[in-house]
């Protein structure tokens, strides 16, 4: 009986300490892995969307950027994406490019909406850019851009 008690104390104290340490490191390392996966996914989609914006016709460029902003919106629900400022920067940049495309197409209302979306995205990361400055950015993007066709 005494031996059994002795063995029980040894195993259970080891179990308790092991479980606590395992829980701590399991949480930390899994969170790190998930954050790493989130970075790869957002960077992968973002990179392809921006390449498509640079290289494709306006219709495909729109589709790619809208796809990225929708993807980023869904990513906002992931706990691992909380506090990912780079995702917010990329989303803001995508909205500014969408605003530029719509401005060139003559859709000023939609362009304005995208500027506001960009502003909101930057605001969420703690940078409050005035609308005027973002409009200047859109004008700069358009200065480098090519003629745009009508929207779908």
């Amino acid at each position: 009986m005494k031996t059994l008690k002795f063995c029980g104390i040894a195993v259970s104290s080891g179990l308790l300490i092991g479980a606590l340490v395992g829980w701590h490191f399991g949480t930390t390392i899994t969170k790190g892995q998930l954050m790493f996966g989130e970075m790869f996914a957002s960077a992968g989609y973002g990179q392809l969307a921006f390449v498509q914006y640079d290289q494709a016709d306006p219709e495909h460029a729109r589709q790619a950027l809208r796809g990225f902003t929708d993807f980023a919106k869904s990513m906002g629900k992931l706990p691992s994406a909380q506090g990912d400022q780079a995702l917010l920067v990329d989303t803001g940049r995508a909205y500014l490019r969408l605003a530029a495309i719509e401005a060139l197409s003559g859709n000023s209302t939609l362009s304005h909406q995208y500027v506001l979306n960009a502003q909101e995205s930057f605001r969420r990361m703690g940078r409050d850019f005035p609308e005027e400055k973002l409009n200047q950015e859109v004008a700069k993007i358009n200065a480098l851009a090519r003629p745009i066709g009508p929207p779908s």
Partner: protein
Amino acid sequence: MLKKAALFGLLFFVGAGLGLFAGWKGSSSRERWREGRSFGSPAGRDFLKTYNLMGRLLEVNMGSAMRLEDPKESPERRREYLNLLLDTAQKGRTGVTDPAALTLIDVETGITYVRLAMVEEAAGNLPASQAWMQKAQTTLQQAGWKDYSEAHLTKLVLAMNKQDACDCPRGKR
């Protein structure tokens, strides 16, 4: 006394090992469940498929770009990695329904075809190089690219290789 301490230590470590495994598994499963719990709907599951594929594509893409930039790598190793990228894109796209994501997967595929063309050209296999380049041009034309000339694609992909080979995911563009 010494025997008793050794037995205690042994049993303690057995318990600690089991506890470590159980704690690790439990917390890891909990974190993964928390990560995916908002995506139980069909649209959510579709998003997760795109999410996983995009991450995997970038991972393999960076690996293949590093091998293309490394002069010590053999053409076989380069082909192997580029074919892995094509395989990942091909298998991954079956679960994706978002048209924007599907077009971007085609873009990644087209860029990989250009890389394969360049590997074959460097290895002196001109017919294979031309065949890959034609596939690239067709794919990228369908993805809406304005300039899909060989010269433009080669120049662009050379620049992308340099960028992809040394960038971490957050350093992109």
